[in-house]
């Protein structure tokens, strides 16, 4: 992984940060209960469970029941954080997320670990490329894909303080640090300007934020200056940041570890189309599943690296030069 992110320091996996942040929140807030479906050691919710066994329920391998139980806990005043792999909790629990979480707009936080294709060797059945689109489709959900350990900690805290359903996507591998410490100004629906530039804007989240930062540095060497926005919150979007990016830089590239339809790219395009249409390119998976392999090889093969962002920036700049829109 390190080879993909020259100049950046590898930090913890966002799932590790999730477990620690949850444990820390548990020390402050008695009303938190945590449920997991037999993947607590992998999602790291076990970090909470070890310290608070009375408020931790490993429900066994039954995601649908877990989501329903969370509905019961929440309607009785608890703040459930429920976790499993992203593909399982979102896909197997989807109708329950609709009926017991979204429709009653209950105060439940859903954490999907092993997001994207970077879980690697276990293969596509354990990877998750549809979860963000599905979570975004649920009315009233906040959907957040943090980029590093520090932003994850801030997002877990924000999730507790937000009243309503939240989906947090966690990652399996260690990822580069984008921030130096827990960002004090983190808020759902607010993008973070990481690098300034006026030639184009790269809007990314999750692991792809670090790739966008690498792309920024490399493009700068040849005199192309791209703005980098960390759009951790896919829903609600920071529409003002998108409008300014379109207006001031005239071209947008999105980058996400997810299918390009239904996720960050699609949602940014929808906002830009309404606010200020500009040429756009999309880095992400194009209507495909991935396969087994080490994370670095997978990210290279499926087009999710700084190189792919740089190529997309060149394409979008060319289209703008040609007067396309």
């Amino acid at each position: 992984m390190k080879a993909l992110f020259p100049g950046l320091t590898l930090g913890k996996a966002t799932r590790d940060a999730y477990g620690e942040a949850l444990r820390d929140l548990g020390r402050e807030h008695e009303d938190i209960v945590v449920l997991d479906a037999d993947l607590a050691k992998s999602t790291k919710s076990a970090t909470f469970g070890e310290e608070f066994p009375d408020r931790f329920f490993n429900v066994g391998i039954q995601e649908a029941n877990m989501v329903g139980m969370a509905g019961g806990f929440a309607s009785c005043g608890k703040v459930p954080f429920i976790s499993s792999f992203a593909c399982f909790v979102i896909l197997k629990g989807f109708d329950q997320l609709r009926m017991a979480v979204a429709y009653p707009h209950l105060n439940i936080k859903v954490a999907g670990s092993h997001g994207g294709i970077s879980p690697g060797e276990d293969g596509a059945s354990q990877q998750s490329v549809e979860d963000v689109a599905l979570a975004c489709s649920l009315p009233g959900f906040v959907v957040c894909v943090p980029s590093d350990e520090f932003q994850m900690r801030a997002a877990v805290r924000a999730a507790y303080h937000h009243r309503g359903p939240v989906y947090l996507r966690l990652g399996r591998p260690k990822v580069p640090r984008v921030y130096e410490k827990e960002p004090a100004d983190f808020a759902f629906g607010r993008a973070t300007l990481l690098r300034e530039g006026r030639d184009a804007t790269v809007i990314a989240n999750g692991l792809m934020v670090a790739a966008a930062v690498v792309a920024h540095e490399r493009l700068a060497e040849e005199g192309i200056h791209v703005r980098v926005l960390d759009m951790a919150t896919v829903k609600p979007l920071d529409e003002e940041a998108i409008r300014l990016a379109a207006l001031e830089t005239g071209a947008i590239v999105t980058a996400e570890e997810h299918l390009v339809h239904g996720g960050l790219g699609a949602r940014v395009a929808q906002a830009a189309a309404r606010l200020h249409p500009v040429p756009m390119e999309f880095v992400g998976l194009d209507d495909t599943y991935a396969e087994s392999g080490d994370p670095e090889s997978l990210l290279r093969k499926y087009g999710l690296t700084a190189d792919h962002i740089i190529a997309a920036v060149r394409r979008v700049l060319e289209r703008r030069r040609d007067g396309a829109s």
Partner: protein
Amino acid sequence: VEIVTALYFGGILRYDPRRPDWPDRDRFVLSKGHGVPVQYAAMAEAGYFPVSELDTLRKIDSRLQGHPVYWSVPGIEASTGSLGQGLSIGLGMALAARLDGKDYRVFVLLGDGECQEGQVWEAAMSAGHHRPANLVAIVDYNKYQLDGAVADILDLDPLAEKWRAMRWNVREIDGHDLPQILSALEWAVEHGPACIIAHTVKGKGVSFMEGENAYHGVAPTEEELARALAELESALPRAELSIEREAAQYREEGR
């Protein structure tokens, strides 16, 4: 109808319509959400909202949605209508009570066809493991589902053995016999997690509807409704339930 009546008016459910958010109230989850007109009628009668509001059922802008919606009217404790989900929600409620050291009870009413859903058995297995003493499931076993007889489509039998295998205490009763229902509920709250399998007859009390699946999910015509209400009225003890008053009002207003 008899089960919901027993819960609301038989001294089983502890509730206060003036304080529907009373934290210590018992919870009732109608997992077979399509039965919600019965619950609305009981709740109106109990004083949660005016009986006259029942006329707005399923109409635009009404609080009385076609299937239960969490808190659409105070006292509706869960959104249901996608079958199979209520027991999981009830289990979460029951465990929340235990965490908080509270003694409220949770009653979940399931349909028989609904027990074909896998999630019911996830929740049943989970409750058998966590053993919340305050959780009661009631299965309305009327032997029919939308497309036909349960036994023909996907037989549930032996149903009681299934619940027992999930480590529930189980009783089977005649679901139309109020004393039997009340005694089973009183037993259940002392023996949770407990399941009451209530054997019922679809359309009970209306001669032309009894066991006749053509009325599943289909509203009666005006003429059928009048006949049905007359039959039900004649079977009721005098002035016991407002359905009688409603029927009279219905005829007077000529609707």
